[in-house]
Each structure stands twice: as structure tokens, then as C-alpha cells.
């Protein structure tokens, strides 16, 4: 991990120059942050994906999900739900009083759930690595995979 922590000086953005004043100093603006696209940072959590149940819907193994717990789940929402003691990411299907969690992979059958008890939060963004380097970075950052009974592995 030592290469991830380069030696750094105390310099921080926001200060003034010591020699010639920066002509742009007064125009310094707040830098863009990914937090700006959150609906409610206080209700937002990172969740990590393991397995291929939603691969065809664009959520792959090792993706990082941004989950908002304050957003109401609707028919078709990607949700994080708790099924007994494990958490899953699925597409919510509401047909009248019947509530099902649908996968996007033939090996994962739909899960019937009790309304209002199982939904933990709604997926609002999916962070998907597109280069080998970023894939490696995500893998190193997120929890090591546990031995699982994933039928597709």
C-alpha cells in the first residue's frame, strides 16, 4: 500500500502565491465533486457488488454502487434488498400486492419478498471500472471476495 501514499508537502489549494500574484486568484471556484450529484449525502452509502446476477442489466462483479436510502423504491428500480441474512441487488417488480426481486441472469430465479420489509435502499449510480488499472484499483479497495456459492463462477 506504500505506493498509494506518496510523500507530500503541506501545500494545500486555496492559498496565495509568494512571488508574482496569480492573476486568477480571485476567480478560484469550488472544485467539482462527485458529492454534488448525490440527492442526499447523509442518506447515501457505498455498496460493493459480488457476482453476476445483474450482469445483463449493466451491474457487474466488483462494481461499486451508490445507494440512497431516502429515495422511495418504484416498480423497475434497482434496489438493494435484504433476503434473510444476505443482501442482494435486483430490479424491483411490483404487480399489485406482489413484490418480486428480478435478476438479469438465467441462473438466478426471481425472489418473492414481503412488501415493505426487505428493501434497504435504491441504487442511484453504478461505478463501473473500464480499464485494467481501474479494475485493479477497485478490486484492491473493496472487500476481498468471500468463498461463495455463485452458480456462475
Amino acid at each position, binding site marked *: 500500500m506504500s505506493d498509494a501514499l506518496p510523500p507530500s508537502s503541506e501545500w494545500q489549494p486555496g492559498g496565495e502565491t509568494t512571488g508574482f500574484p496569480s492573476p486568477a486568484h480571485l476567480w478560484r471556484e469550488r472544485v467539482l465533486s462527485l458529492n454534488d450529484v448525490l440527492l442526499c449525502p447523509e442518506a447515501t452509502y457505498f455498496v460493493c457488488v459480488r457476482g453476476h446476477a445483474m450482469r445483463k442489466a449493466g451491474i457487474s462483479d466488483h462494481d461499486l454502487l451508490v445507494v440512497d436510502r431516502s429515495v422511495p423504491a418504484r416498480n423497475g428500480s434497482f434496489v438493494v434488498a435484504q433476503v434473510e441474512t444476505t443482501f442482494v441487488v435486483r430490479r424491483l417488480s411490483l404487480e399489485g400486492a406482489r413484490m418480486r426481486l428480478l435478476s438479469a441472469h438465467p441462473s438466478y430465479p426471481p425472489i418473492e419478498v414481503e412488501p415493505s420489509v426487505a428493501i434497504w435502499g435504491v441504487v442511484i449510480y453504478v461505478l463501473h471500472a473500464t480499464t485494467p488499472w481501474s479494475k485493479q484499483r477497485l478490486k484492491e479497495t473493496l*472487500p476481498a471476495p468471500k468463498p461463495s456459492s*455463485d452458480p456462475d463462477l
Partner: protein
Amino acid sequence: MRQLPLWQVPSVPIQAPPSHIFALADGNNFYVECERAFDLTIRKRPVIVLGNGDGCVVATSREAKSFGVKRGMPHFLCRPLIERYNIAVYSSNYPLYQEMSDRVMSLLAHYTPRLEVFSIDEAYLDFSHLSKEQLISSGQHVCREIYQRTGISLSLGIAPSKVLAKLGSEVVKRQRLQTGVFSFVGLSAEQIDEILSQILVEDLLGIGDKLAVQLNREGIITARRLKYADHAWLRHRFGVGVQRVALELRGICCMPLHTTPKPRKALTVSLAFGRPIEHLEELLEAISHYSGQVGVKLRQHHQQTTCLEVFIRTNPFDKRTAQYARSAQMTFALPTSYTPDLIRAAKALVTQIYRPGYLYKKAGVLVSALQPEEVIQPDLFGAFSWEHEVRQAAQMALLDEINRRYGRDTLFFAAQGTQRSWQQRARRRSPRYTTNWQEVLTVT
């Protein structure tokens, strides 16, 4: 000072115009609800959270409480209850609780111009800007929004003083008010007194156990009695603190909102060991480690100490072993926050009070008479060297910076030990979902 019999005190309280309105937001069973936020299966199950190396109960859910588990109970005493009622047991997960608290507080800050974060799960909101009619609906709005966004339910008490506001949140809990809000504003004096007569003085903000016993001895049992006690007499007999509480009960604000914390006068690091310690060597290691932590905290707050106290004790719950408890303290000639000074002093004190043949369960280091770093009073009898001071300060600054940047305990003193097998283990701690990438929630 003349003591007025309570029944002769005029029953008309001093009425000040309610210029301030406070709301106390108190998280219901905060630690438990933090655990429940990440495990829906324990939402209906009784839950307890253990602290201090899983030694005793620090938080209970409402269900667990109803089965007889109380805060402060040793873990082993509640084992039968845990089994009989299928209680879910957690070790305390302070990183998670602190982060969830920050979420709640940062949401609360949206609803008031001034917020005083009083504890990990309590905050005072300044509601003075709201009209009487808006108070309850605004309070309900706050509770609803916070619950929806964080899963933490609040009890909100609204009143013209902090003591009453705190009482209001207590009323919400006792009466299980679904809206989460109770307001004293607009109630008649009779209605308020009816509530106060059901509250014991020891449950009031600012009245500790010792004071409560003294008050009880004078016949002041309920908050209503305290409210109508002669306050000149209260001040003379118990001091200005109790008088303030009495005035606050009358709705007169004596405790303003503090948006920044006061500098601390003392700080303690004391922890129970994971297993009983018998030998002096291990005790010295533990006490050195605690001294190191005290040093870090002192420097964080830019403070220095002149007085250090150390205590050791056996396990009072273990009736089969011999009991021993002792403390000792010393004074530094010059105020210091230099870890080697603290460690040296603490080790000397422990060596002094240690007696062989006992099984020690807990130890602690306490520093008091704290003062800001800048104030240096050179010793009359020499021994003060400015260069020496500066060198020590630079060393500690470097140590703290390294540990801040590369993680706690990257660099530490040899005296603190490397194995620390006495350190308590939290065996049932839930993952640090929000502060550690390796422990985020995983879905399949």
C-alpha cells in the same frame, strides 16, 4: 439563610417572556438503531450493544429493556436473558456510531440557525425564530425527515429552556408519542406542573446522582418540588447550578446555546483489559499505552497538563478473587504534553501502587489542570529551557503527523508494547460500513 417550608413558597412562578425556544433532539436507542440500519432482520428483535471489551451493556433496545437488561449490566449476568429471549448482541462499533451521528447532526443543522451538538446522540436546536404555531409541525417535520434519511428516530422536546426541552424529549419516550415531538410551549402552568410532578430530580439535566441524594434528603424528590423551592435558599444550600436548574424548570433560560465546545479541564483514558493481568510488566505496558493516547489527545486540543493520576483495580464482579483498587497522582513542575514525560510519570506511579497477587481488570490514566499550550510559566528553580521545549514539541508534532497520515500506531513508543495481548477484543463488532472500504456492505 432561612429555609422556607416548601408549601409556603408563593406558587406564582417568575414569568419571563419566552425569548428563547430550544428543541432537544435525542436519538432513540442510538447505538442500537445504528446497528439496525444495516441489518433489517434485527429490527424487531431485542438488541444489546456491549462496551469496554464486551464487559458490560452500553445500550439496549426497547425490547431488551423490557426483558430486564439494563445499561451497565455486566455481560455475563445477562447471558441467561440473551439465550431465553434470543437477544442479538453486538460489540460497540464506535467508528460507525460516530459517522452516523455526523450524518444526523449535519441534517439537523439544516433546520436551525444555531445547533449545539451536546453528545453523540443529542443536539439542541435554536427554534427561537419559529412562531408558536409552527413549533410542533416543524418539530414533526424534522423527526420525519431524519428518520426517512438515516433510519434514526428522534425524540424532540421543545421548550423555552434547555432543562425543560430535555424533559420534553423524556416525555416523548415515556409516553411513546408517535409524532416524536412534545412541546411545553403554550401549556398552562397546571399542565406543566402535572408533568413535573412525575419526574424525579435525578432525571434532570444538570443534577447528578450525588446532588439528587442531597436534594432528596431535603424533601425535594420531584422536579415540581424543585421548581417551587425558594431559589435563594437553593443557591445557598446547593450552589448556583441547582438554582439554575430550578429557574430553567420555570421556563427561564439560564443555559445558553454553546455552538463551540468549552476547552476541557481534564481527560481520561481508562479501559478494562481483555483478560485479567497479574504481572507488573504487562500493567506497565498497558498504562504506557494509555499515557500515549492521553498525549495524543492533549496535543490534538493544544493543551498541556500539570497533574497526572493513575489507577488500577481488580474485577469487583468477580467475587471469588481478592479485591484491590488504588490510585496515585503526581504533579509536573512544568506543564507538558510530551509523551515520554507522561509515560515515565505513569510508570513510576503504577510501580508504586502495584501489589503482586491480584488479578487486575482495569487501569486508567487521568490528566487534569489542563491549560492551553501557549501559556508557559517558567519554573522558579531553573530547569526550563526554551530550546528543549521546542525540540520536544517538534518531535511530537512529527509523531502525530506520521500517525495521522499513515494510520494510528504507525509509530509508537516501545513502552507501549507490540503484542498488547491484554488489549480488549471486540468480538461481535459489525463492519465499519461507512468508514472503511474493506468493510462496505456487499451484495450478490
